[in-house]
């Protein structure tokens, strides 16, 4: 082949690949914006103040809101954080700082397996250990299910950000006579703090949309659910219930709830990224 021929061939291959990769990228962004736009059109128009402040109306009456589901989701996520984050954080510290090779490898592997367990199975687990014992659905059971789901990512992201702390910082603290626990608590964890918080926020955003484990743990409720001991509404379960109903008004409400949930998750995601990028800037001098 002549050199001009080779060059034409190279250019052709380049153009084909550029087109394919570019189209894929457009498709990915397009899907996200399609979902966002569709939810906005269908959901935002239904959104009103009542959605955030009122209880659902009985079938046949239009209007009402999902205040109980918003509060229910918030309570379950708070509970999930209270359960998942301490366990995940401490497990991550163990893996990054104390774990010996063989055992740490087994723990890492099991953590990844737990991460891969389908959420519905986690739901069955929470159903078995909490709901069956208490003989009724509850906010507590929903929080436990979501908390278990948060553990693996909290473990691995904590571990990863601790590993990223430069060796020099550890040695600097040890060289001043700091015991290992003190070095970890006062130098290494603070240096990794922003990363760890980001990881936990992304983790939270991920479980915020989980529906399957809530269907038979917190179940659902058309009314307020005080405390943690009664069945409770949550946004994802409410969307499921309303979207599969035969009523047009409920469909509109489901879109509104979907829009609110998506905005919530996007907000958590974006602020997590902002925290991380700020921490990188500050470290870059």
């Amino acid at each position, binding site marked *: 082949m002549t050199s001009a021929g080779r060059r034409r061939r190279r250019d052709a291959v380049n153009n084909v690949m550029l087109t394919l990769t570019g189209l894929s990228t457009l498709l990915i962004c397009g899907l996200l914006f399609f979902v966002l736009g569709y939810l906005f059109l269908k959901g935002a128009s239904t959104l009103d103040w009542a959605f955030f402040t009122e209880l659902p109306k009985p079938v046949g009456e239009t209007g009402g809101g999902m205040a109980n589901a918003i509060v229910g989701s918030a309570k379950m996520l708070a509970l999930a954080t209270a359960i998942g984050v301490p366990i995940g954080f401490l497990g991550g510290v163990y893996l990054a700082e104390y774990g010996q090779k063989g055992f740490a490898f087994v723990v890492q592997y099991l953590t990844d397996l737990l991460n891969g367990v389908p959420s519905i199975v986690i739901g069955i687990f929470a159903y078995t250990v909490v709901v069956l014992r208490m003989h009724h659905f509850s906010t507590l059971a929903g929080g436990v299910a979501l908390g278990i789901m948060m553990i693996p990512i909290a473990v691995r992201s904590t571990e990863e950000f601790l590993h990223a702390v*430069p060796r*020099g*910082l*550890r*040695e*600097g*603290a*040890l*060289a*001043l*006579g*700091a*015991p290992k626990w*003190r070095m970890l608590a*006062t*130098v290494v964890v*603070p*240096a990794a703090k922003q990363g760890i918080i980001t990881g936990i926020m992304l983790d939270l955003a991920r479980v915020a949309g989980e529906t399957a484990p809530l269907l038979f743990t917190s179940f659902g409720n058309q009314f307020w659910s005080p405390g943690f001991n009664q069945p409770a509404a949550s946004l994802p379960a409410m969307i499921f219930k309303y979207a599969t109903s035969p009523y047009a008004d409920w469909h509109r409400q489901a879109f509104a709830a979907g829009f609110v949930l998506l905005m919530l998750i996007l907000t958590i995601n974006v602020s997590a990224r902002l925290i991380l990028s700020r921490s990188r800037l*500050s*470290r870059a*001098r």
Partner: protein
Amino acid sequence: MPRLTTPMPGSPKPSEELAGSSPAGDAAAPVTVQGAASAELFGPGVEEKMRITGLNFFYDKSQALYDVSLRIPTNHVTAFIGPSGCGKSTFLRTLNRMFETVKGTRVEGDVRLDGEDIFDLDVTSVRRRVGMVFQKSNPFPKSIFDNVAYGLRVNGGLSRAQVAERVERSLVRAALWDEVKHKLHESAYGLSGGQQQRLCIARALAVDPEVLLLDEPCSALDPIATAKIEELLLGLADSCTIVIVTHNMQQAARVSDYTGFFLMGKLVEFDRTEQIFQAPARKETEDYITGRFG
């Protein structure tokens, strides 16, 4: 801990007239002879701070130091030079047991600090008494004040006012006070490279170490920052025993009272700095300082 009683094969055998000035081969010699030799090496009024005898160092199976024996004089600057990978940094990291943070390392031999075996002491107390400054400055992501106060707070037992006073004194000793006194509570990362390294020196000085180890502290700095640190070291030697590892021979010549030359894990020669640079006893040393290799 096993202690070697015979020198390693191939370890330097000082000739007759050098016996007094080359403790490298002293491992096999009775302590009395070594004491006499050091007395001559150190001169009157110079005391021994650390004594290293028959030190062998292993990374897993490979040996990094062979039968190193020497004594480090109190309140003087001792420098170690040698080509990359000769073991000088490894040697420095045994003096405060910092090597223990690396898995698979093992030490044989005896390291004494004021006559006490450092491996019998609590590791944190060894590191409080023997401070260290690293090649790459490593300020914590905290304020300037909190960096210097770190070791004081770890040790505890000081009031806020005492901590503040010690922080100021340490920054003055590290010749950094005037540059940072108006911004003590700003991040240490806002300082220049040379200032950060002096901050690390101040941080190490704050706990009043008896010995200060410096591992190529100027290798990342420009000549002006280097000069500041060298000047600082000369001033510190009145109150602190300083051990510096450097790949810069001129630096060793400028700042140190005693110099040791490492080559392939062995301490080839250890003597007064003038002696090493003007009339080294061994050919390897001469080859190195005249730039014939390394």
